[in-house]
C-alpha cells in the first residue's frame, strides 16, 4: 500500500489544472483536501455545517477557536496557512443536491463524496454517471472504511452495488454509530491515492470496492469486484 516513490514532477504537473469537487469538509474532506492540495489540484469544497466540539476528536484540520465557524471557511483557512494558494480554492457553504449543481459542480474533473449520509452518496453517484464525470465515494463508521472509484461508461457504479439508500431505521452515521478518527486517516489516504489514479487515467482500482472492517484489513483491504448491472437505475441500459 505504501508507495516509496516521491511524487514525480510529471504527476504534479498533470494534476495542476484539474479541479476536484469535495462534498463534505469534515473527517474525510479535511485530510483528502490536504493530500490533493499537495498535488496542486484546484479544489471546490462544499459543506453547510459548522465546527462543533464533538468534531475535534477526528476532524484534525480544526481547532477550538474554529467552533461555530463554517467548516468550509475554517478548512480553507487551514489550507492557506499550509501554503496553498487561495486562487486554487473555491468553497461553498451549501448542502450539495441534484438541484443546486450550478453552484458546485462547475468544471469538475472528479467528484469526491466525503459526506456522512447515504442520500448524498447516491446523489453524487447518480450525478457522476449522468454528467460522465468520475467519482469517488468514501465512507467510514466505527472501525470500518469503504472506497469506490466509479468511471461512468467503464465500470459499475455505487448503485449497481447497493441499489438504494437503506431505510432510515437501519442508518447509522458517525453521530449515532461512533468512529475512531484514525480510520478516517486510512480511508482518506486510500482516497487520495485513487483520486491521483483517476486524474491520470489510471483505472487500476476503479470499479472495485475497497472495504476494511478491522485493523488487519486496513493493511490489505478486501477488494470486492462487481459487474455493471444492466438494470441499474443510474447506469444501466434501462436508466
Amino acid at each position, binding site marked *: 500500500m*505504501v508507495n516509496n516513490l516521491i511524487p514525480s514532477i510529471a504527476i504534479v504537473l498533470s494534476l495542476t489544472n484539474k479541479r476536484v469537487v469535495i462534498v463534505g469538509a469534515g473527517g474525510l474532506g479535511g485530510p483528502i483536501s490536504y493530500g490533493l492540495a499537495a498535488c496542486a489540484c484546484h479544489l471546490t469544497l462544499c459543506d453547510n455545517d459548522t465546527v462543533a466540539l464533538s468534531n475535534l476528536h477526528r476532524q484534525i484540520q480544526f481547532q477550538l477557536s474554529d467552533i461555530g465557524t463554517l467548516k468550509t471557511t475554517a478548512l480553507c483557512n487551514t489550507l492557506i496557512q499550509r501554503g496553498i494558494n487561495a486562487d486554487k480554492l473555491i468553497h461553498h457553504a451549501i448542502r450539495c443536491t441534484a438541484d443546486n449543481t450550478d453552484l458546485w459542480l462547475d468544471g469538475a474533473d472528479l467528484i469526491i463524496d466525503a459526506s456522512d449520509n447515504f442520500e448524498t452518496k447516491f446523489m453524487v453517484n447518480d450525478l457522476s454517471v449522468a454528467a460522465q464525470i468520475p467519482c469517488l465515494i468514501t465512507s467510514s463508521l466505527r472501525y470500518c472504511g469503504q472506497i469506490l472509484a466509479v468511471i461512468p461508461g467503464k465500470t459499475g457504479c455505487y448503485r449497481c452495488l447497493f441499489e438504494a439508500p437503506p431505510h432510515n431505521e437501519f442508518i447509522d452515521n458517525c453521530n449515532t*454509530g*461512533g468512529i475512531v478518527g484514525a480510520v478516517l486517516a486510512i480511508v482518506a*489516504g486510500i482516497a487520495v*491515492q485513487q483520486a491521483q489514479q483517476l486524474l491520470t487515467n489510471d483505472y487500476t482500482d476503479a470499479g472495485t470496492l475497497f472495504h476494511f472492517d478491522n485493523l488487519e484489513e486496513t493493511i490489505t483491504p478486501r477488494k470486492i469486484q462487481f459487474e455493471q448491472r444492466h438494470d441499474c437505475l443510474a447506469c444501466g441500459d434501462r436508466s
Partner: protein
Amino acid sequence: MTLSPTQIERYSRHIILPNVGGVGQQRLLNAIVHCDLSTSKSATLVAIVYLASAGVGTLILSGDVHHPVTHHDIETSICFELNDIGTSYITALTTKMTASNPDVTITSNESLHPHHRLIITDETHTIQDALILGGQHALSVITSIVTVTQQP
C-alpha cells in the same frame, strides 16, 4: 477520575463505540504513549495528531524532537503550517495540540514510563501514504489501549 461534561461532548463519538465507552475513553486519557520520531517522521506525525485528538493523555516524543519544521514537512504530513517553519517539532506540535485538545500533554521527558510504544519504520514520501501508515499505527495503539483488561 470521571469524564467532565466537556470531555463527554468532545469524545462522544468514541464513547458510543461498543468497544470504547466511558471506561475506554478514560483509559485513553490515562495512557502514556512513547512516540519515536527518529524514523518515518511523516507517518509518525500523522499518528501523533490522531492519538492526541483521540484524547491519549500523554505523548512522550523522542528522536528528532528539536528538528526545525521545514516546507517539506508541511508537504508530506498533516500537522504543520507555514508559521511553524523554523520552530522545533515539539514546540509546533505542542502549539497545535494546545489549540485543539487541552487534555493532552506532549513532552520529551523520557523518565516517564510509557504503556505503549509507537515505532514506525517504513518511510513515506506523500501525505496519502503517511495518512495510511500513520492511521494504521494510531488505530493499533488506540485499540490496544481501550481493550486492556485492567481497570483504568
